[in-house]
């Protein structure tokens, strides 16, 4: 696969060619009595178990540690965003990813959430932080597109920009942030890439963003960011709208 932009000192091209992210930005829907309950929750859990058996990874944590990740998790984002839940799975192929979203929706997910699914192949491998990433409970989801200024820039200008951003990414890792690589979304979205971090705190993410601003990261990208706290996916599905 041709990378949209080249590998860097921090990011290496992935050797898991073909694996595909299934990211989701989900907003809880008002649920009428009888429309969503224990039956739908059990059906979604059953689909998730099937996906696990089909070599899916059912959390960002599992992208770093496929064997030790435990139950499916996602990030609780409703305190800061119109989106209530943000998260990501990883499927073994594009076709499996697309079919999997429909299996989940039909099991009852669509009764619970209005969801923007974002699918695409892995480009860069994971980059671990400096500490115990499994203990980190904050997630940061970045979506971005290369903007008109990037499109008009020359090759040398883009390489200089990549080198500047790489300094910022090295700073992220030094803040004990783990980066789940990079996936490509452009074939089925207006976004070009997604990057997801596990971070020790919101303060660490804020410090990292200052580093990216200093590196002029956003002169060539238009971005949207989400931050949330890791919770079991089953709890996020079960939660009533508006409750903590």
């Amino acid at each position: 696969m041709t990378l949209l932009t080249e590998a860097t000192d921090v990011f290496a091209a992935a050797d898991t060619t073909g694996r595909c992210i299934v990211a989701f930005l989900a907003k809880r829907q008002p649920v009428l009595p009888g429309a969503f309950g224990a039956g739908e929750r059990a059906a979604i859990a059953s689909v998730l178990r099937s996906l696990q058996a089909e070599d899916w990874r059912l959390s960002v944590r599992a992208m770093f540690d496929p064997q030790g990740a435990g139950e499916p998790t996602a990030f609780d984002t409703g305190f800061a965003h119109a989106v209530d839940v943000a998260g990501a799975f990883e499927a073994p192929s594009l076709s499996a990813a697309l079919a999997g979203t429909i299996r989940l929706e039909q099991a009852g997910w669509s009764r619970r959430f209005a969801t923007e699914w974002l699918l695409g192949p892995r480009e860069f491998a994971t980059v671990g932080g400096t500490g115990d990433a499994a203990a980190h409970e904050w997630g940061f989801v970045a979506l971005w597109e290369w903007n008109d200024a990037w499109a008009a820039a020359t090759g040398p200008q883009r390489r200089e920009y990549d080198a500047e951003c790489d300094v910022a990414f090295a700073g992220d890792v030094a803040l004990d942030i783990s980066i789940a690589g990079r996936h490509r979304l452009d074939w089925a979205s207006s976004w070009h890439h997604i990057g997801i971090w596990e971070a020790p705190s919101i303060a660490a993410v804020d410090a990292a963003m200052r580093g990216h601003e200093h590196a002029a990261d956003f002169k060539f990208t238009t971005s949207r960011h989400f931050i949330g706290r890791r919770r079991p996916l089953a709890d996020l599905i079960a939660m009533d709208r508006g409750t903590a």
Partner: protein
Amino acid sequence: MSDCIWIHYARPRPHWYGLNATAKQAKQANWQAVAAASLQQGGTCLGTYHVRGQHDFETVELWRFPSAEAAFAHWSGLMAAGYGECNAFANNIGLASGAPP
């Protein structure tokens, strides 16, 4: 194999308008070669439609592909040929539901 629809919205980026006709034609020829290869490999182009009057983009182009991977291959070929450097875009993929119309 599964029947997929692929929906592609596009508009020229600002610097496209500064290219001369020869440069534009050379790029368009490369993109047309990618489309021809996709047609050869089982894709079907359903047409390109003008939507500028009621949308952020200028055109919408519809394709059917035999798989999600075929849609990705088509798009990846266009991007490797510099399409995204000259066009802003938004894409979508859908799997045929099998439901009657």
